[in-house]
């Protein structure tokens, strides 16, 4: 990434409280146009709270969300949002699920359906347009969910552990596919994950959050060359970054050997 890119999304001292507990300390994060930012942290670190606020479906207790410089705090419908659950409507076909955004905000036009069908065809779902979700595999369902988000044509995508429920082979395939999609559309992506490898493989920057109260702990630049592929996982630079990130996430130097346990020394 270069410093010349303009700021797409600015999270300005956004904080949230539920009852008396601070769910999210005032958090600031600035995301450049076309940047891919991974957010990693344990459960309860306020990632989902942050996403709900950025997507506009919850009002923060304090702070603002700016999109292209305009205040969009508490305004839904400005960014694309995708969760771990694919949340496809079981009574709609794959195609009708892809055009759900148009259906929810108005009428689905002939044009919307043609675009969705062409999009699906290009992303390996061409033969499954008229299939109900229960007949699709987990990877295909999540692909439909991603296409549903892309159809909204939003510049900013919030992806909340979208591949968390997939098996590791499908997940790796989906990660590579997401990078292709991202390269093609030039979207700005915020990506929540629990997986250190996934965070590094995808992102330009990794934000480490920690719980009670949720806050940003570290920010790590990932200066790995693109396009990235399977070889990226074993590059020395990747391994070094992973070591640093593991240390950040688990709060200690990752190079330190594991404590001796009862399973040691038996072999």
């Amino acid at each position: 990434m270069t410093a010349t890119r303009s700021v797409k999304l600015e999270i300005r001292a956004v904080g949230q409280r539920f009852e008396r507990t601070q769910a999210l300390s005032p958090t600031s994060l600035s995301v450049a146009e076309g940047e891919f930012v991974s957010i990693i942290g344990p459960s309860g670190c306020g990632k989902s709270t942050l996403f709900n606020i950025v997507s506009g479906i919850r009002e923060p207790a304090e702070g603002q969300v700016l999109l292209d410089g305009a205040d969009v705090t508490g305004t839904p419908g400005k960014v694309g949002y995708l969760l771990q659950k694919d949340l496809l409507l079981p009574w709609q076909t794959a195609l009708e699920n892809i055009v759900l955004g148009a259906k929810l905000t108005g009428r689905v036009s002939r044009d919307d359906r043609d675009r969705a069908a062409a999009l699906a065809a290009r992303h390996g779902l061409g033969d499954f347009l008229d299939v109900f979700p229960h007949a699709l595999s987990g990877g295909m369902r999540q692909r439909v969910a991603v296409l549903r988000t892309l159809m909204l044509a939003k510049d900013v995508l919030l992806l909340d552990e979208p591949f968390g429920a997939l098996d590791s082979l499908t997940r790796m395939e989906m990660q590579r596919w997401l990078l292709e999609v991202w390269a093609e559309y030039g979207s700005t992506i915020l990506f929540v994950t629990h997986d250190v490898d996934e965070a590094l493989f995808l992102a330009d920057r990794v934000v480490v959050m920690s719980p009670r109260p949720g806050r940003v702990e570290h920010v790590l630049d990932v200066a790995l060359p693109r396009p990235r592929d399977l070889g990226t996982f074993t590059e020395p630079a990747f391994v070094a970054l992973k070591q640093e990130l593991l240390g950040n996430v688990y709060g200690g130097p990752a190079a330190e050997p594991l404590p001796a346990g009862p399973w040691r020394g038996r072999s």
Partner: protein
Amino acid sequence: MNRAGRRVPLWVRGVVPLAAIAVLVAGWAAVVAVFGIPSYVLPSPAETVAAITADWPELSRGALATTQVFVAGFLAGTAGGFLVAVVMAQVDWVRRALYPILIASQAVPIIAIGAALVIWLGFGLAPKLVIVALIVFFPVVVNVLDGLAAVDEDMVDLARAMGASRRKIFVTVRLPATYTPLFSALKMTATFSVTGAVLGEQAASSSGGLGTYLAEQQSRLNAPAVFGDIVLLAVIGIVAFALIAGLEWLATPWRRGSLAPKRRRYRPAADPAQALDVVRAG
């Protein structure tokens, strides 16, 4: 489909239930013949059919009258139950207020309500209709409420994040989730409410329906006519159930296969290349 996942041919699906009914009737005829049961205790199938044809003008009028009560009450109860469930799901205090009253109302024998209804509404169509509607009402409310409660709130959040209004979310996300439980309730009550129509007619007997006819023939110990009446009631129940099952089949295609029915499939644009241009432009 059977357990091996193979499609059972249509004729097998039609023949098996019909054969089972034939066996039942044959068994009935055999029992009457073998034990020499007199027709005033248990008429044979032939005597029952004879009783139906002999009294056909009155029975057909009765069947029509009962069907009217049944259909009107069924529709009223379904519509009422559905609306009440929707309001209960949307407005928390209404649900809290109505739920215990609804449950208590189910503990009251329908016959007792029938007597009160006759006092209030007279001997016309109204009390019978209300009895049938009451029978349908409760299962519809409970099942539709369950369907609405089963909607994933994350799905609702997602729809909101897409900028959907409350009304759109209700129509697109919540409403279709009620179809399956609604049809379960309707299939169950299709048969109960025929009983309801009979009870209603016996409580408020003025116009001659099958319930009135049943009471009359019973008082004359006319067993063949009683059995003929019962057969017609059973037919009404079966037809009602079949109609609702058919409606369910049409309304919930995602439950019976993986591919959408033809009318719900995507018809591609005349020129696919043009569609791709649209994607690139969008």
